[in-house]
């Protein structure tokens, strides 16, 4: 019933082999060029080039004709409008713009797979990674694609149920059940995600550390001999204090430690040969 394939067909034409960002850039550049250029001859030339490019990607015939027919119809209406005003240059320019951008966009769509385009969009959303980590975007996109047929199924079922009750004309009888069932579906999905720990990267970053520190503190106590406790207990107290002191104080402390080190190792050295 519902296809999410679009008009993309795999192939090996030059447009298929071009990278997605290049095709995007081409589309954006061409749109700006169409807006800026209002010379009818150039406009017709660009239109012809775009239509040829569309033909070169070998798109599926039926969907392409359907997509272009609407645009051509709109272009004809616009042309008639402008011709009635007697402005034939503007008529040609506007019609050319409409058709060329539509053809180029269809060419891009028919030669770029959805995963490539989504990858490009995720890359473009990189500056948002403080708000939305890329993994979350990936999860949301795949969940959206999955929930489109689900939502369509819910709407269809609500419509069938309303018709069975003889409430076919009542929009409320269709829309309220479908919307509330959609929310229920979303909440169940959220619980399922939460139970599996999916898409909770950000949350875990701020909540997990405390128990983990406790685990790390308790685990060495069980595993390692008590000798390890001494350095692990001392290091946190020493380092922050050392960084805060002035240079002179640190030098004094170093000298003091050096003196102690000179005095201290001697007894064990003397003891060792005797023992």
């Amino acid at each position: 019933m519902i296809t999410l394939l679009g008009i993309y067909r795999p192939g090996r034409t030059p447009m298929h082999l071009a990278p997605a960002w290049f095709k995007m850039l081409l589309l954006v550049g061409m749109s700006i060029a169409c807006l800026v250029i209002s010379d009818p001859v150039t406009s017709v030339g660009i239109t012809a080039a775009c239509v040829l490019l569309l033909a070169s990607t070998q798109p599926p015939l039926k969907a392409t004709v359907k997509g272009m027919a609407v645009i051509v119809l709109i272009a004809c209406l616009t042309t008639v409008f402008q011709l009635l005003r007697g402005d034939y240059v503007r008529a040609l320019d506007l019609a050319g713009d409409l058709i060329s951008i539509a053809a180029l966009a269809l060419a891009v769509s028919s030669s770029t797979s959805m995963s490539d385009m989504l990858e490009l969009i995720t890359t473009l959303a990189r500056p948002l990674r403080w708000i939305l980590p890329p993994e979350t975007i990936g999860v949301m996109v795949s969940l959206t694609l999955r929930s489109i047929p689900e939502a369509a199924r819910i709407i269809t079922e609500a419509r069938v149920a309303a018709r069975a009750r003889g409430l076919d004309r009542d929009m409320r009888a269709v829309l309220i059940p479908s919307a509330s069932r959609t929310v229920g579906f979303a909440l169940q999905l959220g619980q399922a995600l939460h139970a599996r720990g999916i898409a909770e990267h950000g949350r875990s970053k701020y909540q997990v550390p405390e128990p983990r520190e406790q685990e790390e503190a308790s685990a060495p106590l069980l595993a390692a001999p008590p000798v390890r406790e001494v350095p692990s207990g001392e290091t946190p107290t020493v380092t922050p204090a050392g960084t805060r002191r002035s240079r002179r104080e640190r030098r004094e402390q170093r000298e003091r430690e050096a003196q102690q080190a000179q005095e201290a190792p001697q007894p064990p050295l003397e003891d060792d040969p005797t023992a």
Partner: protein
Amino acid sequence: MFQHRGFTAQSIALVAVFAGLIAASTLTPEITLAAGVPLSLQTFAVVVTALVLGPWRALAATALYIAVGLAGAPIFSNGVAGFAIFARPSWGYLLGMLVAAPVVGLIAQLLARRGSLTYVPLLGAGLVSIPIIYAFGVPVLASKLGLNVFTLPADCEGVGDFASGCVTGITVGTVPFLPGDLLKVFLAALVAAAIHRAYPGLLGAARRAASGSVHADEDAPEDEAARATA
């Protein structure tokens, strides 16, 4: 406020499913009016999303719908897919929806804070979306069709004189859609009020989750309780 630490699995599921709902609403039967702008349940779905989810999640859902559509899924109105939407005169309305969703959602969240999520206040919030959507849709439509937005050409006698080309962008872009859009917003407020009755705490839970970053310890059990009841 909306750090990603407040972005729970429940929010992710709601955002994704409502983006799917917006997409599915365009696949239902629809009518194409003059100038090729289709009338579908899309506006209804966007307004319901905003009224139910609040500002940030509604913005995310609408943006996600547009992103998936641009990536090549035929989920724009009339089954348009990918960047071909920018060739249609109606893409300005899509941009308007992206702007209107957070604004309407913000009003809905303020209503939730005051505890008045009933039909009439929600209707007021939803009606805000119409001028915003038209403010983006009409100029794009007018420029695509080569019309002036406000002013008529100098040699015109009356407004709406179609045959001599005397028609403004406002007339073409507003008048045919206004009755349908008003009807859709009325329905959306009705549906949103029903959803807030059925699932109380949808907007309140969002507020708790967002402020949970500040006092994580105090709100944590309450948050869990809200999730369990929801």
